[in-house]
């Protein structure tokens, strides 16, 4: 379908208007086609109305004028639903820039001979002129179409509507109920519209996932994947489109890890705004290392969002206190925001928005995710990777540092240190493990990877003391540690 999506000269030819939804604009590579017809299809409850309403609402907010025609809801219900999302339609209506035309389609109609949509066109003409609208939304046109009761007639009448719209300087969004399988679909509508979006929802395990895709965009390129979205208190929200390494801020400045010797191993500390992983078996000190990092950042006056999938805020704070790490005062100063989340409580997309909202709300410079291994409990295996990829991508473009901990299942090979295929996104990876040395179990830390800097490539002893994590002085003779046998930790 996307004959035009390859890079030829036509791509620039179509004037587009922003949708009011940044992530949707990215998918549509600019927005809806100006003065053309866009079709939004999808099953019941996929958010067609909301997506469409938000677009025209935002247009009206920014000074344009819009008419919203609905065949499914009455105006009061629409206003109420919008108000729940913080959109004040009544004010816009009062300003004259927004008009809601609700039409009740009769349940029983008798047919006697031919008829057509002239009345609809007359109504549209009147409303568009009165409001001076540049945007038109027609919601649930299928409710009107079903009165024709014959595919060929519906098609003919839609053609009439499309032609009529084509002669007007108005950008139209048309929604239509379409099932993914079976029942009624309007295949010909795809041919009449210039831009076709499809919304879809399905169950993925026990989690509902929603996807948006562009089926067609006449005369334009578009991103052709399926994009996850959620419907929450802020409307229809598409997850940010991943465009790795395009707008990422270059790493330059360093920050302390909070542990003097670790800074030396890293060649001067972590890079600011980098993506960091602490990986290792249970109990080796990952959470403490992450807490130490958070404290170091807060001490610089920076804000940290600490997402804990494993323990409560209290337990994190008391765990720190036991190792001489005082976190409570940082929480009180609102530098450290601890957010405990149950991984199973929602799907990955909701988690992502939950985290992105918190990042925005607290305007943090650092995000700690403890532990990413828990993300696998959110749903499909690939979902965990998608979540982290999108989070890292968002943070990198904003210059926000991401610190992940990961509970490694074994102390064995390093080929997959993150457990979710994340290795290539990481700037720095620290691997921790247990070794049997003399008569005791000791902890070792290795700077496995540190992009763009000279770093130690040896295992160093790590001790958890009453005054926090201590890493033994880097000495040339610690090479002997390589001979130590790694042992598996005893899992609880």
């Amino acid at each position, binding site marked *: 379908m996307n004959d035009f999506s390859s890079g030829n000269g036509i791509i620039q030819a179509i004037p587009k208007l922003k949708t009011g939804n940044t992530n949707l604009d990215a998918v549509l590579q600019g927005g809806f086609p100006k003065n053309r017809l866009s079709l939004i299809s999808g099953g019941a409850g996929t958010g067609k109305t909301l997506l469409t309403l938000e677009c025209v609402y935002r247009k009206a907010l920014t000074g344009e004028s819009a008419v919203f025609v609905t065949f499914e809801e009455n105006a009061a219900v629409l206003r109420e639903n919008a108000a729940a999302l913080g959109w004040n339609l009544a004010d816009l209506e009062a300003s004259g820039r927004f008009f809601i*035309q609700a*039409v*009740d*389609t*009769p349940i*029983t*109609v*008798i*047919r*006697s*001979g*031919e*008829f*057509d*949509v*002239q*009345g*609809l066109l*007359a*109504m549209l003409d*009147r409303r568009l002129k009165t409001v001076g609208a540049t945007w038109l939304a027609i919601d649930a046109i299928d409710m*009107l179409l079903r*009165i024709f009761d014959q595919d060929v007639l519906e098609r003919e009448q839609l053609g009439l509507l499309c032609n009529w719209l084509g002669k007007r300087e108005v950008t139209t969004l048309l929604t239509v109920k379409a099932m993914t399988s079976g029942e009624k679909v309007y295949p010909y509508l795809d041919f009449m519209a210039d831009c076709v979006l499809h919304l879809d929802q399905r169950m993925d395990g026990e989690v509902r996932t929603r996807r948006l895709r562009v089926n067609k965009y006449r005369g334009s390129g578009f991103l052709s994947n399926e994009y996850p979205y959620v419907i929450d208190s802020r409307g229809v929200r598409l997850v940010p489109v991943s465009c790795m390494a395009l707008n990422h801020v270059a790493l330059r400045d360093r920050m302390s890890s909070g542990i003097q010797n670790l800074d030396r191993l890293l060649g001067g500390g972590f890079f600011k705004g980098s993506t960091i992983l602490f990986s290792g078996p249970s109990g080796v000190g990952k959470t403490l290392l992450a807490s130490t990092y958070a404290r170091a950042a807060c001490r610089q006056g920076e804000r940290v969002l600490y997402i804990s999938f494993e323990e409560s805020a209290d337990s994190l704070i008391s765990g720190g206190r036991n190792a001489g790490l005082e976190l409570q005062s940082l929480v009180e100063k609102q530098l450290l925001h601890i957010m405990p989340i149950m991984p199973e409580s929602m799907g990955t997309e909701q988690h992502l928005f939950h985290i992105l909202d918190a990042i925005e709300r607290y305007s943090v410079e650092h995000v700690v995710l403890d532990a990413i291994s828990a993300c696998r409990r959110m749903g499909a295996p690939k979902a965990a990777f998608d979540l982290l990829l999108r989070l890292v991508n968002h943070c990198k473009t904003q210059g926000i540092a991401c610190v992940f901990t990961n509970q490694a299942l074994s102390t064995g090979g390093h080929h997959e240190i993150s457990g979710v295929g994340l290795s290539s996104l990481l700037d720095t990876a620290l691997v921790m493990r247990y070794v049997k040395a003399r008569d005791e179990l000791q902890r070792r830390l290795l700077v496995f990877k540190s992009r763009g800097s000279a770093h130690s490539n040896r295992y160093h002893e790590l001790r958890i003391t009453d005054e926090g994590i201590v890493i033994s002085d880097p000495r040339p003779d610690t090479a002997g540690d390589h001979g130590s046998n790694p042992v598996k930790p005893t899992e609880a």
Partner: protein
Amino acid sequence: MTLRDASDTTGSRTPSPRVILFVAGSERNSRMARENLKRICESDLHDKYQVRIVDVLVDVETALSHNVLLTPCLLIQFPEPAIMIVGNLSDAAAVQDALHSDPETSE
């Protein structure tokens, strides 16, 4: 087909049917609907119809107040319950049926 009894007990004649025909100017189907309705009215010897014609191209608001977007469209306001007939009324029998349908007796 019998005439309906008056709903009240006075024994007076049933009020005559009251209809609105919505047309879109003089477009073909609308023209046909006017002619067909005229014929239907004239053929009914018992009743004198109260007919109002609304041109949606001129009076959009009246059409909208009755949720009429498809034309031509005949809205039978009386006898009740109100019923909507879309089309050029070429099927006169369907219109007659609707005009004289009696919810009390028809199953």
